[in-house]
């Protein structure tokens, strides 16, 4: 099942406004979907884990839109809702999946951390997806498809040794893998400085991988940087290490946030959604938000009514 999703993003010709509008649509959708998920969790309609991307939408939307959705490949981790929606905009499939319904993208079997659609794959064990991404890049290179593979890493995940094995191999074999390090400065409850010695932005340099470090406050900036990087990677078939500094506004998962209120308040002021919202006329924004709100509303209602998967839908052997 390889559904090719057409980019909701207008091509370069159109003016900034349309692009801003498109980005806002995606970012607002992500934010709203995740707020709904947290509410549904609080109300007991969702069990397990819900890792939200709230605050990181500029990174997710900026980078994903720089990819060629018709052939590029994306591996991600436990915090992938934002990337998933930016990638394929399947609000209905995601909400149903996380509610454990058979109408979910993985029939409710995978849940929040284990989703797959088209060329996107996520898994919940930190680090293990990285060699998978490198292997996928090797496969695509062997098949000469010109696909670029992006793999999402968190700052905490840089603690896993297999990440370094993969950096070495991707560079050694000259594979087009975009190592996207989404550095929100925290891993679950542990601040970066208790997880890492040295500067994460420099991790890939010893493997001769070109690297860049950017702030993810302005989605347009993230997009243009990523677009340039990806097109160069495609040309040269080389890996790249993109370090994106961002902020996790919500809890790690569900409600488990032990950070002081003030700290979170400070982060809120960097909310990329506010920043981009400011660039849109209020009436237009209202219109966009209403449409999205009601779409999500409907998706939730549909998912509520959908039934759970049965044993017959579960693969056994």
């Amino acid at each position, binding site marked *: 099942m390889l559904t090719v999703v057409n980019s909701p993003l207008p091509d370069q010709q159109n003016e900034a406004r349309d692009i801003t509008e498109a980005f806002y649509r995606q970012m607002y959708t992500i934010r709203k979907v995740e707020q709904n998920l947290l509410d549904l969790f609080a109300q007991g309609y969702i069990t397990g884990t819900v890792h939200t991307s709230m605050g990181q939408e500029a990174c997710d939307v900026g980078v994903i839109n720089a990819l060629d959705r018709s052939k590029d490949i994306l591996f991600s981790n436990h915090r992938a809702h934002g990337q998933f929606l930016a990638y394929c905009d399947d609000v209905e499939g995601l909400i149903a999946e996380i509610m454990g319904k058979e109408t979910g993208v993985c029939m*409710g079997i995978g849940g929040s951390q284990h989703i797959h659609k088209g060329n996107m794959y996520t898994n919940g064990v930190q680090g293990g997806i990285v060699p998978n991404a490198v292997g996928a890049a090797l496969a695509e290179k062997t098949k000469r498809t010109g696909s670029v593979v992006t793999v999402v890493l968190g700052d905490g995940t840089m603690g896993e040794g297999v990440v370094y094995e993969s950096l070495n191999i991707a560079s050694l074999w000259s594979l087009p893998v975009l190592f996207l390090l989404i550095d929100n400065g925290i891993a679950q*409850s542990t601040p970066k400085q208790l997880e890492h010695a040295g500067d994460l932005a420099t991790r890939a340099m010893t493997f001769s991988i070109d690297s860049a470090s950017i702030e993810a406050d302005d989605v347009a900036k993230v997009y243009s940087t990523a677009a340039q990087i990806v097109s160069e990677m495609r040309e040269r078939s080389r890996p790249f290490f993109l370090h994106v500094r961002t902020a996790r506004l919500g809890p790690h998962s569900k409600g488990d946030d032990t950070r002081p209120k003030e700290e979170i308040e400070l982060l809120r002021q960097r909310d990329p959604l506010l920043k981009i919202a400011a660039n849109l006329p209020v009436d237009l924004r209202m219109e966009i938000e209403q449409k999205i709100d009601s779409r999500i509303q409907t998706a939730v209602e549909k998912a509520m009514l959908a039934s*759970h998967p049965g044993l017959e839908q579960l693969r056994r052997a």
Partner: protein
Amino acid sequence: MEKDSNAVVLGEDILDPYGGAFKVTKGLSTNFPDRVFTTPISEASIAGLAVGMALRGMRPIAEFMFGDFITLAADQIVNHAAKYIGMYSDQIKLSLVLRTPVGGGRGYGPTHSQSLEKMFLGLPMFHILAPSHFVHPGEILAHAISTGYPTLYLENKLLYPEVLKLEQQDGAIHRTVYFDEHNYPVVALSNFPDNRKADIAVITYGGISRLLGSILNKLAEEEIWVTACLPVSLSPLPIHLIRSLTEGIKKILVIEESSPAFGWGSEVTSALYDAHAGKLDGPILRMGAANSVIPASKPLEEKVLVSEEKILSTVFEVMAW
């Protein structure tokens, strides 16, 4: 840790105020700041650090946030911990415990719900423990760290909210405790007066124990007399105790949370057949999870895992033979 100045604790996110994903270590870092180490997300190294510390005479207790991640420490367990202690001439002691929450029932999905003890059962020079709420987990942990054997200590997530049941008698249920050669308890529960013999033996461990109280009571009402046998040590297996506790019982049911194929129950079953074959009424039954991933969708997860209902109906079935 108060008593033992060589005890150290390491793991991910274990510092206060968070105190670990399942809060088991809450308070420790406040009371013992120099002996509680929050680690990077590096499971192989968490185990490797513990092994290195144990080689140098410390007593590390390391936590894996989810039992599913023990796979990342497999090389440290198999080729390091279990080898240092066996391949060097002097009888090296490796006092170290790897703790981890295991099991499903929380809707965490395929990579956060497994019971992977199967992977290490039978590994020479390595111990695997799975306390139930019929024993005192703290005492067992304290003993484990003193044996000099590297030990995997499994805590079923669903036992965290349970209250310990350590009384000799609880309603219809009698609790008797035996000790194996490594001094780990084997708990025997029975739901009948001493003057009779059990109709069926149920052998299980860890999280399944939370279901036994209610099951034994319900079966007592049906006048189905059960002896449940709960070893703490999964490997090595205290088989002689299990044998004598099941001696003369005509029906045997072995239950584990994971899928039964090549599981703990396979060893228990073959060992009990060796002892009781011919004296049994029907085959020894094994129960466990479906042979699939553990799905995130809670209703489906319940269908995949063992439940009180499934155990009861299986017992009724067996009794009807």
